[in-house]
């Protein structure tokens, strides 16, 4: 049955309503609060507040930890993706399920679990103490936050990389070997460049949630380490300064958009050149 314009508009309407109520209106409100002060008059102060030392410090720390987490995720995910792509189909789905399984549990619960593991009197130190080994003091440090980020976001890196690796036809690898490339050259000249799109989407899907998280840093970083996500959260929940919180959100949003645009441009270039 051909769908005429009227019915198609009718079918679209729930999605349009959804988009308006849950995306456009909130976004508009963020922009409204971000560019006004508490009296409602226009100002750049909230956005410019990012330049203040403590805000800048939070942003840079968040960027640093996200970059470190993303790099670790990449280093862990790429070899795993290669192993998966080479494995037999039956083993493959089992390994993938194993890595996705934790995602079926609540995100906060998983992070809470890491808290119990890493605490100074936590499970890991308990085991170390039992073995008469020196304990580790890792909770409430940036390292704990990185562990939490890597653990929570690793599947988002594995899946796109595995997908792009498994879409490379064997004969392409054979062709590289046939043309004289050894296995190292084949990897760097053929396999790696062909998986750039997968790497970029993996990096984006790990880097962005890591950059904006406040739950992981709150639970594993204690109250001492403030990432930009924590700062924004506290502006809303503790200081009730919606204007400042929105202003900083806008900065973060623009930062992420720039990142996506830059990576998608380099992705296109990679495909063309």
């Amino acid at each position, binding site marked *: 049955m051909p769908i005429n314009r009227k019915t198609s508009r009718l079918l679209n309407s729930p999605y349009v309503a959804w988009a308006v109520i849950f995306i456009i209106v909130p976004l508009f409100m963020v922009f409204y609060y971000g560019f006004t002060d508490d009296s409602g008059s226009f100002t750049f102060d909230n956005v410019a507040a990012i330049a203040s030392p403590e805000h800048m410090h939070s942003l840079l720390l968040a960027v640093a930890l996200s970059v470190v987490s993303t790099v670790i995720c990449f280093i862990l995910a790429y070899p795993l993706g290669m192993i998966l792509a080479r494995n037999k189909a039956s083993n493959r789905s089992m390994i993938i399920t194993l890595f996705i399984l934790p995602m079926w549990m609540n995100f906060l619960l998983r992070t809470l679990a890491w808290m119990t593991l890493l605490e100074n009197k936590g499970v890991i130190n308990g085991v170390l103490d039992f073995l008469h080994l020196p304990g580790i003091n890792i909770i409430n440090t940036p390292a704990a936050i990185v562990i939490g980020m890597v653990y929570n976001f690793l599947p988002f890196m594995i899946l796109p990389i595995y997908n792009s690796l498994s879409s490379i036809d064997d004969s392409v690898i*054979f*062709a590289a070997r*046939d*043309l004289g490339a050894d296995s190292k050259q084949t990897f760097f*000249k053929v396999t790696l460049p062909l998986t750039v799109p997968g790497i970029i989407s993996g990096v984006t899907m790990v880097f962005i949630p890591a950059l904006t998280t406040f739950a992981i840093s709150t639970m594993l970083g204690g109250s001492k380490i403030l990432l930009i996500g924590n700062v924004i959260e506290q502006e809303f929940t503790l200081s009730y300064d919606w204007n400042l919180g929105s202003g900083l959100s806008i900065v973060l949003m623009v930062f992420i958009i720039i990142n996506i645009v830059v990576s998608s441009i380099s992705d296109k270039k990679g*495909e063309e050149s």
Partner: protein
Amino acid sequence: MKKELIKLNHISKAFDGELILDDLNLVIHENEFVTLLGPSGCGKTTTLRIIGGFETPDKGNVVFDGVDITDLAPNKRQLNTVFQKYALFTHMDVAENIAFGLKIRNKPQEFIEDKINYALKLVNLEGYEHRMPNSLSGGQQQRVAIARAIVNEPKVLLLDEPLGALDLKLRQDMQYELIRLKEELGITFIYVTHDQEEALTMSDHIVVMNQGYIQQEGSPEDIYNEPENAFVADFIGDSNIISSTMVKDELVNILGVDFVCVDKGFGEMKPVDVVIRPEDVELVPKGEGTISGVVSHVIFKGVHYEMEVTARGYKWLVHSTKLSEAGSEVDIKVDPFNIQVMNKPESEDEEALNPDAD
């Protein structure tokens, strides 16, 4: 006799316990166009991959130009492969694809550029240097794959069903181009296909394979005119394969009627298979031939009529430019030298693929 270039000695290969190649021996001479021909699963691609170095044989060895290369990595072999699915590097343009092997060997930039231009000219793709593979048609991609292989000046070019994905017209054009290329390059081509027409058109030497065994080797004429067993006869072209009895030398009893033939040495009253090509079956007016029958079916094929004649319980396939109407009574006549007598299959791999087909 031409120089021996590649020798496969007693090659066996199994995958997951299933024997793909069983004690295969094959000699390939310099500057020949050799085709490995057979149905899917006959082991032809595995043979090619063993020559290319992508598979290691379980038993036996591969000798290349007098040197044992059985365990040599593919990147160290003096041969290049054109793959069925082109296998182009989609992140590189045409020129970069072609330059890949030369860059790996650290050839000077000027040399590489000359080679790219030469190769593109050879495959009729001048001006396509900076196109991306995905923007090319299947035929163009295959030309790039060929160019990419030949710039490395291999002694042997391996081609794994390279025309399989192309449409009929393009495939025929490419066949002639491959013949021309081989003559210009003066190197050995080893070509894998399941298409008997392709094999007959292009090859100097055809190796017919089935179920891991070589069934017959020879020139296209030999293979077509003198098939050694029912499988070869059935696989190469249409044919009438009839179970018969060799009465004595030069006399064979087909469907109860004695025919004079030219084959000898099969013994007396021995069961054999006889193959008669459809174009070798002559239809003559009743009373002038050896066996009488009725035309049961006629199809116009363009170049000729394809007729089915039922005679003595066998449905004869006949190709002729002269039409005999369906239902008409005719006699069948076969010249002695057009009757090819073969031994009965001794194993499953020598049997006709599908006796009722064609």
